[in-house]
Every structure is written in C-alpha cells, then in structure tokens.
C-alpha cells in the first residue's frame, strides 16, 4: 500500500522529527545543522512523492535545486560554526545566550 498519503505521512513525520531535533537539542550546534538536513530531506521526499503520483517532472527539478541549496547552506552553516568555535571556544547551544533581553 505504497500510496501517496503514506509517503506524505512519512515525510510529515520526518519533518516533525527534524523540527523536534532543533527544539529538544540543548547541547551541540551540529545536531541543529543535522536536523535542518533532516527537514530538507523530508521536503524532498514529499516533492518526489508528489511528482511521482502526478507524473509531472517539475517536483523533481525542484528537489534538484533544493539539494544544491542545502549543500550551500550546510557550507555556510559550518563556516559560521567554525567562527563561533574560534571566538567562543565552544559550540554549546547553552553558552550562546549572551544576546538576550
């Protein structure tokens, strides 16, 4: 029963996991970046499922570009992580609360 709705539900759950990854993670920033990857993966699965069930290639092209962007984002994210580590000495999310109020 490989139906469209099943795929959507799997993608939704994966999306939820990605979001939960950001919310419940109190410690390292890398986990945040990975959760973002998870979210993008969920969206891609969603799109591919739609394009498969509507035999319209546009969705897959969209996924193609999303992958490119995800890569670019990951690059910048890790660069910022390096800067953060260099200035702050730690990548602990809890330590990033000097800007508040």
């Amino acid at each position: 029963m490989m139906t469209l709705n099943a795929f959507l539900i799997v993608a939704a759950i994966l999306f939820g996991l990605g979001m939960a990854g950001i919310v419940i993670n109190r410690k390292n920033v890398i986990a945040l970046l990975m959760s973002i990857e998870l979210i993008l993966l969920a969206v891609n699965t969603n799109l591919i499922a739609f394009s498969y069930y509507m035999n319209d290639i546009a969705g897959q092209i969209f996924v193609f570009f999303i992958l490119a962007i995800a890569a670019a984002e990951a690059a910048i994210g890790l660069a910022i992580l390096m800067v953060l580590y260099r200035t702050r000495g730690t990548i602990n999310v809890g330590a990033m609360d000097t800007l508040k109020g």
Partner: protein
Amino acid sequence: MPNLIPLLPEIFMLSMICFIILTDLILRSKKPGVIYYLSQFTLFGSFIITAYLYSSPVITSFSQSFILDPLASLLKIFIYISSFFVFWFSRVYVSERKMPQAEYYVLTLFSILGMMLLVSAHNFIVLFLALEMSTLPVYALVALWNDSPYGAEASMKYFVMGALASGILLYGLSMLYGATGTLDMVAVSQSPHDLLLVFALVFILVGIAFKFGAAPFHSWVPDVYTGAPTAITLFITSAPKIAAMGLAFRLLVDTMPVLQPEWQQILIVLSIASMALGNIAAIIQTNLKRMFAYSSVAHIGYMFLGLLAGQTAHGYAAALFYMFSYTLMAIGAFGLLVILSSKGIEVEEISDLRGLNSRNPWLAFMMLLVLFSMAGIPPTVGFFAKLWVLESVVQIHLVWLATLALVFAIIGSYYYINVVKVMYFEEPDTAAPFVCPDNLTLAMSVVGMMVLILGIIPSSMIMLCRSVF
C-alpha cells in the same frame, strides 16, 4: 531564446559583482575607495536600467518564471535607494573595522541581486532560490566582523532560525505543489478553495512572517540586530524588508487570492501580536539597537494592518507606503548610530546619546524628526503612513482594530520620546562638540529632510504606490 530584456538589471548587477571581485583581487586593498565607488555605481546603474524598464508593459520570461511589472520595478527602485544609503552611511564604519572590505560589498550586492530576483519571481523555484540567495550572504555578513564577540552568536542564531523558516516555507510550497499540481503562481491562483491549500497557506505565512520579523516568529530580530555590526544591522533592517514585501505580495496576493479571508484572519492575529510585543518590550530597553529591533517588530505589525485590509480599501498601497516610510526611518535611526560609532567606539546604549543637542544640534534635529516620525507625529511621513493604514482598516469596518493599533502606538511613543528626552533634555558627559565628516552629515540630512518633506507633501508618493496595484 528566452527574452532577456526584463532581466537586464539582474544581469548588469551580476556582471558588476564579478567585476568588483576581480578588481579587488588585483588591487589587493591598496585603494579601498574604489570598491565603494564601484558598488555605488552598480546600484546607480541598475537604478537607471530599472527606471528605464519601469514604463514597459508587463512581460514574463523564462517560461513565466520571471515577471517584470510596475510593482517589481518599484520595489527594486526602493531596494537600490535604501542600499545606496546603506553603503553611503557605512563606508567609514566598515573601513574603520578589521573586516574583509571587499567581501562586505560583494556579499551585500549578492544579497541585493537575490532580492531583485525575489521581487520579480513568478515561479516557486525561482522564488525559493531568490529567497535563499538574498538571505545566505546576510548570514555571512552578520559574522563578518570577528572582533565583536556577538557577531558569531547572532549569525548562528540567524542561520538556524532562517534555515528552519525556509524549511517550513519549502514544506508549504511542496504541499501547494501537491494540491494544485503546478509550481507556477498564476496556475495556482486559478485553483479552487481547498483545505489543503489552507494547510499550505499557514506554512507559507510562517515563512513570510519570519522574513518580516513579525511577532511570534520575531525572536531572531532583537539578537541579530544587536549582535551584528551596526552597518550590517542598517542593511538588514532596510532592504530585506522591502524584498519581504515583494515576497508577501507575490505569495499572498498573486498566488492565493482565493484564500484572502483566511490569511486576513491570520494577519490580524500576527499584527496585534507584533504591535503589542514590539511596543511593550521596547519600553525598558537600554540598548538602542535592541530598542529599534523591537520597534521594527511593531512597525511590521502596523504594515500588516494594510495588508489585511485588502485591495478594495487600498490596503496594499497603504502597506507599501508604510514599508517605504519605515525603511526610510530605520535607515535614519541606524544611520545615526553608524555615524556616531564610525570613530571606532561602539555607540549602542541610549545613554551614549546623552546631550547630543548641545554637541551637534543638526544631527540631533535630524534624529528628532526620525524618532517623531516613528512615533507617528504629524509633520513627518510616519504619521501619514499610520494614517492610511488605519484608514484602510476602518474602511473594512474593523474600527476596534484601529483603536487597538493606536493605543499601542501611544505606548510605543513613550520610548521614542524617551530617546528625544535623553538627546535634548540632559547634559552631555563630554562638552566637546561631536565633529562628523561632511558626507555623513549630508547623508543624515537627506534622510531627515525626506522624512519631513514626505510628511508635508506625501501625495506624489502615495499615488506612486496606488498606481502599482
């Protein structure tokens, strides 16, 4: 061969950016001024091209994924103007600080290119790519000045929140694709009302609200505004907001007109939340940048009033006018901070402005105009912005919302006049007059005078905004 005429400004911009990267490579920062003048020339050039293309009929190219219509051109023109001011203000600031000079200009120009594309995107893929193109460089810009301890943290927060928001927006777009079968905006707008569409609408609205910095999704605004160097905050608070207007018009007005009642309801909630939180949280702030951050959240709330009033009550024109006047005011406010801290010392606290009237009366007067305009006091453009937004809300019989908005405006006016109080009523620590280079005073005076003159004769500006819809 797709029609490249509508893309002329973008092409010009991209080629100029590459040219700037190459010149920087050759000059190896011997003559730093060249990059600045090149960037200003790029903006000026694009302005000329867009102005030339303004009167052309509505053309779509690249198989309806890129559209050139008066709205897009107008938004682009305002992006150029605000960026021109951003560069003009932050030139000294950037050269004083130890940050890669050329990269600052290049990344900003890339972000502007992204905004130009975003504003005239007519296909979800182009829209999303343009959105990413406009935000990615800003993540880097925020962390560019590695001396400041906060830059990295602000940038990381902005990155994570930004990625999350774009993920949500993507999810919305994918559901929209799923429900309507196409990625093109015009086709989506023809599809009938459907619950899945509403489901997708919420996700998209969250993405837009994040980009604007509206209330429940505003958490990044205060930290990023304070953490980033003031010059970059100046950029963040002006140009991206106009691009976000483009995003909002494309996604809400062009793509989902049929869901107007739904997103009107959501916008009412968002605007009340933003006005309330923005105005109330800003009262006890002592850091000027953080205060202006909260005030930007509040102003977005007012702009949403225009958006939700719909086309019949000329709400969109009022929202557009509000956004242009807000950008002008924000440039004035942060511009002053940039001028004051261009000598190396960071001017952030309200108490740093103490007694500015006796140190430099003209600058203080300009800041006074900007502050009163933000509070919405008549002789300034801010008043007419608020007036027309409220007028359109009253037009659709939401008088209670207009009253609530004004009550928040009064609460909000406290912290603006508090800054005026600090500037005018208190004695400065050092009696030495604040000498500021002429071109920066000229920049500030232009902004101040525009706030005042547009406040006195705003009819041409509002007609411009009306003609676009």
